């Protein structure tokens, strides 16, 4: 609630009597100027948007972007690719009788084990070489095998052992002659 004092009411009444200075012309001129500025502003905006130096700047940006795009896209295609050192592929192995020993294996001096008296006697002459696995001829790994890709050179798997000779099939003591068909038996059957 507004509670004004009597002297404040008097002051308010006195302030209403204050003579107004004659400034109407200057006030109207100011108002007119402000309104003109206000109306001119929207009309100027669209024209200044695409005129003068603005076009040059816009065109420059477009050209720069196009050039950069062309440069980078061209560079991707023509730039020499990073040279990766390629391992020299070994020449294909020709068929030959010569056996290839890729690595020398250290010869360990062989000394026969002391034979205990309580063990059965072993004929050492039957063993061609103590390290028979080394002597066995091993197949050459094919050119397209994974091992070749890893090691780069034909590699002989010295550990692998050649398959054991096949066991003869059939019953022992029977020859091919035993399988011959005799005509006598068949005619005898026909007669029945």
């Amino acid at each position, binding site marked *: 609630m507004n509670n004004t004092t009597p*002297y404040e009411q008097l002051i308010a009444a006195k302030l209403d009597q204050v003579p107004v200075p004659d400034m109407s012309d200057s006030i109207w001129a100011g108002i007119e100027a402000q309104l003109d500025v206000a109306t001119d502003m929207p009309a100027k905006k669209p024209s200044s948007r695409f005129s003068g130096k603005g076009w040059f700047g816009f065109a420059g940006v477009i050209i720069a972007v196009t050039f950069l795009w062309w440069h980078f896209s061209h560079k991707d295609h023509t730039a020499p690719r990073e040279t990766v050192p390629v391992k020299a592929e070994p020449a294909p192995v020709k068929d030959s009788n010569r056996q290839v020993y890729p690595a020398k294996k250290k010869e360990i001096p062989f000394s026969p084990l002391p034979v205990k008296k309580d063990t059965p006697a072993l004929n050492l002459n039957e063993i061609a070489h103590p390290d028979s696995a080394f002597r066995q001829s091993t197949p050459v790994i094919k050119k397209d095998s994974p091992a070749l890709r890893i090691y780069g050179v034909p590699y002989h798997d010295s550990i692998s052992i050649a398959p054991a000779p096949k066991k003869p099939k059939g019953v022992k003591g029977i020859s091919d002659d035993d399988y011959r068909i005799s005509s006598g038996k068949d005619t005898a059957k026909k007669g029945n």
Partner: protein
Amino acid sequence: MTIALRYAADEHEAADILGHAFVKMFRSIHSFDETKGNFHGWLKKIIINESLDHIKQRSRFTSLESGAAEEPFVNNSVIEKTDAAAILQLVRQLPPATHAVFVLYAIDGYTHKEIAGQLNISEGTSKWHLSEARKILQQKITAIQNQ
């Protein structure tokens, strides 16, 4: 113009306030609703708002809380005898924030709540400014009386 003169520090500022207020009025004339009030009241409000914007630009409204405000005694006859222009000069000598609150409250009939909303201050601050204005005016009017 009389309204602008109450709030302005001088005639030139009053003219400036009035010019800006009229421009605002022309721009927002389409929003005037006759059912909400008459045109004079609407224009008066625009002028007061513009005046307060000017005062806000040149002064800071600090948060101040008033204590128990005692009513100062002022001899009314002194005011009656004093010229209107001299009274206006007395009011203009108040600090800007105090001046605005005093004119809003005592002359234009705003409540403390409305003043607080207009000036973004608390009601207590508005009351403090009014009390301060009354004290200063009493001293000045007493000084005129003693002359």
